């Protein structure tokens, strides 16, 4: 992760505070003594029932987007937030600037770009799109 670019959901680059931390996935959780402060890596189709009371203990949860056209991670993120996860939520994988609004609304805190993605779409593109994001219809159909 040391060679990748971390962007906040404003598109602003930031120093990745978790760059050197080791991540675990759902399968290796059982062998772990405590999950306190761990970084958990999830695929979009992860079964949240396996996490249960451990959920609030993770420092960071990383959700993988194998392909930008696969929006499963947006729903998984929302489900994690609704299940009470208040830690750092990170998106990683193939995403495009036009999805920064979707990431923000689903509860993500930042995203990690691979080197080739960051080269083709430098942070300025993400900041541009984020600054001109569409207004939110979903909120305005409800009482304030």
């Amino acid at each position, binding site marked *: 992760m040391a060679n990748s670019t971390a962007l906040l959901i404003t598109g602003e680059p930031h120093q990745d505070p978790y760059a050197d931390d080791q991540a675990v996935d759902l399968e290796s959780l059982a062998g772990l003594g405590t999950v306190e402060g761990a970084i958990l890596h999830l695929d979009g*189709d992860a079964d949240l029932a396996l996490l249960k009371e451990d959920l609030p203990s993770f420092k960071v949860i990383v959700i993988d987007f194998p392909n*930008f*056209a*696969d*929006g*499963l991670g*947006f*729903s*998984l993120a*929302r*489900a994690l937030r*609704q*299940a009470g996860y208040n830690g750092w939520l990170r998106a990683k994988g193939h995403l*495009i600037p*036009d*999805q920064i*609004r*979707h990431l*923000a*609304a*689903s509860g993500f805190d930042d995203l990690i770009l691979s080197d080739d993605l960051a080269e*083709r*779409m430098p942070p300025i*593109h993400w900041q*541009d*799109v984020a600054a*001109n994001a*569409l*207004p*939110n*219809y*979903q909120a*305005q*159909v*409800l*009482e*304030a």
Partner: protein
Amino acid sequence: MYRYNDFDETFVRQRVEEFRHQVKRRVDGVLTEDEFKPLRLQNGLYLQLHAYMLRVAIPYGTLNGLQMRQLAHIAETYDRGYGHFTTRQNIQFNWIDLPRVAEALSDLADVEMHAIQTSGNCIRNVTADHFAGAVAGEVEDPRVLAELLRQWSMGHPEYAFLPRKFKIAVTGSDDDRAVVAFHDIGLKLRRNEAGVIGAKIYVGGGLGRTPRVGRVLRDFLPIDDLLPYIDQILHVYNRYGRRDNKYKARIKIMVDELGIDEVRRRVEERVNLTRDEVKPLSASLMASIRSAFAAPDFSQAPAPISGHDFALPTGYDAWLATNIHDHRDPRHAIVSISLKDHGATPGDASADQMRAMADIAQEFGYDELRVSHEQNIILPHVAKAHLPQVYDRLKKAGLATANIGLISDIIACPGMDYCALATARSIPIAQDIATHFDSLKLEHDIGPLKIKISGCINACGHHHVGHIGILGLDRAGVENYQITLGGDGTEAATLGERLGPGFPAEELLGAIDSIIAVYLEGRRDRTETFLEYTRRVGLTPFRQRLYPALKSTAKKEANAPVLERAS
């Protein structure tokens, strides 16, 4: 009619700018073609066989004269002078240049229109009964709920990259003209015993290669509770719908695989889990939507007159018999304008015709028009006293074809003439059938009959629910047409049954002709419709006529047209 508030206006304008920016990044090579594709699709831009096609949303099929006139302007300025009205109550322009799309979208925004979410794996344009607000006995105008869903689904951040497209339809009437049982979510308005308005929810209906009648998820849910519930249906679909196979990705397959009870359990578990965070619907927004769809003041309409002091144009009576439907107000009528002139492309209208319809709507129709899923245009409110003038004006515009609901009022997908997915032609098939029965002068005698034609298995022409359904396939490089009988897209929600082996294009007309001959000979009397007859006798008499022996020569003879011109 609903008019944009400041929020709607801002959103649509900003969406145009967003798209302009997306096109620029594509041109600059920042976005790959793969990455650009879903972005352009979510703005209604398809790459077809020969050119880009722009699909413009007409929410729940409702538009006013100004908007119809703007569609004429788009057709002339950016296309070849015509547009194609679709089974999703939208309009498609078939010959659009990519660099000019943003300009066209900007022109649309000038009249409160857009092309947002008319394609792509997102929540599509919400459709509704095309007679909404004009027929008697509705629980409520279904466009109230449809408009709420339009707003809620626009740019929804969680549901913009679903496993597959997602279509919602609403009806407020027991006579289902919105085909709700064949949508991803179908909503049928009803009242509970306490008089509260709500909806029955169907989920997992659809046509395509795996046709399914929607399954009942909830028998009744009050309107106020509907959004959180629909939200969770989408959430469960986005989580558990299949992404490994495009052809198994619609919600109907998820319902097949999980079972409707398990889907309900998962949805309701989520509804309960998120209950505390859900805010109520904005009362002021709901009030403004409801008042936008309040009926016009019908009391000023002139009383119907029994005689006329001018000679009626020929054909008026036949037109009255087929193109007029009862209105909730006794002094008014619902007028259907057929876009199915015999031999024309079903659903096409020229810019001049669009302007003529806009003029007539403004003069005689409370400035309101509808697009029906059967690819016709509706004037929902016309004073009966004005019907002769309306007919006269329509006739001058070449829009007075008297065939609504008859054999030539055919739904046809664009087929191989436009579509990159098509395996066979469908427009020319529709034209041949319409021309054939028109030349025989038989269609009024045959009576109500819905033919629906799809040029591939994806079923955009709704062939599964045609009384006669025609599916065009490719058999080793040769077009071959399968026929189904007895389909019904209304509240009876029935899939057609396959007749037998398909027919090559040159034998198809003869086969349809034979099917009609069997019906005309066998029906009890003129009051027994084709669909009723088919339900009564089943497919056997048709099979005996069309496949008398398995010898190909016998089949050829049997399938030459036999019907003669009516005297």
